[in-house]
């Protein structure tokens, strides 16, 4: 890839960095897709472990019924926070909501930069990559000696880990209130419309069970639409000055 040294960071980001991200992301995802089905192809076609076709169709139908809403919406809901590179990595390495999302929040807070800035992108990708390595090491330890770890830890310590995600969310929310050089009050006031919409989406998904799988999409999609109107309003004000 030819990279012009006279480009500004923003230009380099748009002209070289992002196209490179998609080249790597798309290529690795296509290969991963094929690799994922490799063991099945081996057992089915080479070893001859064939279950009836009707069983595959039934399984596929059941999975599609549960997963369809998430398949078409979930990556887009995390993308505004993870960025494209972060989303590619997160959806290959897994644990998107429970691990990559909090990691992104933490690193962005650490450098006080949003994902939409080149600085924020560099920080987020670095943090997510580190989390991938850390997770794989821990997973390997789990697979090898996990049963022993659980047996030596007191039961209440093991149970306390179930609060890990909710405890992270409290600090994540506060982190976001202290970012961008604004006061907590300013950040809180500016984000009330999105929070109100998120709460509305929660109750809507509770009242209409058919929307349960779409809760996150409704919450994020609606918040983005609200953000667009706020942006138009701010733009109008700026142009009037």
């Amino acid at each position: 890839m030819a990279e012009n040294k006279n480009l500004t960071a923003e230009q380099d980001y748009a002209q070289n960095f992002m196209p490179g991200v998609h080249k790597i992301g798309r290529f690795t995802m296509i290969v991963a897709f094929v690799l994922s089905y490799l063991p099945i192809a081996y057992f089915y076609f080479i070893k001859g472990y064939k279950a009836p076709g009707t069983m595959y169709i039934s399984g596929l139908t059941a999975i599609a019924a549960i997963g369809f809403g998430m398949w078409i919406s979930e990556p887009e809901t995390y993308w505004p926070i993870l960025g494209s590179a972060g989303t590619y990595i997160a959806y290959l390495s897994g644990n998107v909501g429970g691990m990559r999302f909090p990691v992104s929040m933490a690193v962005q807070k650490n450098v006080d930069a949003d994902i939409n800035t080149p600085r924020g992108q560099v920080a987020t990708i670095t943090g997510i990559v580190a989390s991938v390595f850390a997770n794989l090491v821990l997973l390997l330890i789990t697979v090898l000696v996990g049963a022993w770890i659980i047996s030596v830890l007191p039961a209440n310590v093991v149970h306390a880990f179930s609060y890990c995600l909710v405890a992270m969310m409290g600090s994540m929310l506060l982190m976001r209130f202290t970012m961008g050089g604004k006061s907590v009050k300013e950040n809180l006031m500016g984000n009330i419309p999105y929070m109100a919409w998120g709460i509305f989406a929660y109750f809507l998904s509770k009242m209409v069970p058919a929307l349960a799988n779409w809760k996150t999409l409704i919450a994020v999609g609606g918040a983005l639409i609200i953000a667009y109107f706020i942006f138009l309003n701010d733009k109008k004000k700026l142009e009037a000055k």
Partner: protein
Amino acid sequence: MSVVKAMNPTLWLFAGILIVWVLVQSGLFYRHTMAFNKRNNLLTKEEINDCMKVGAAAAVGPAMNAIAVALTLIAMVGYATTFMRCGVIGAPGWELYMANIAATTAGVALGSEGMTEAIFTFAIFCMVTASAPYFINCIIMLKPLDLAVEKARKGSGISYTNYMGNAAMFGMLSATIIDYFFQKDNCAALIVSTIAAIVVNAIVKKTGSKALSTFSMVICMIFGMIAGQVVFQNFMP
């Protein structure tokens, strides 16, 4: 379970290939990002190291949380499949759910002697297929999204992209967090971790401690976990 054990060695090979691919992807992105950073001096070496520490440290808690579910999955589908599915794409809870759907469809219990090689292959198929569409989504959707953002960025004055991160984050977090207020233990974990975050943030501001800032999320998480557990043990039936 004997079938699972018999297929395990072969599955380790496929698991190894996939895990290596995950590492290759992360390595490629890291190299690409570092080259970009070097050209533009966006983050210092120290800041990069801090990001790595934050990323690794923030992953420990959720990874520990996943251990219990992963162990259940090991009992049902074996070591190699668990490593393959939880290290790539899946989260233990989701994978266990999908394995159960496969077993129910096949009319057997997971991990039972009724599990044949063919049914186990089918269970792996269900686990893979439940996550594979995310790949297709990423391949198709992410580039157009970025192009749209780039187009918006080129417009004059302020850009919509500056509003997107906050909107998505607060919309998502609010829709998720509200559920926790209805359970005493989760509510305690949430409130205490938020208070801890306020305190840690104030100390960081006062002292300028980089180390405390780096591990602030982990510290707050530990306080929240303790609070949740205390309430669970003492105030819940």
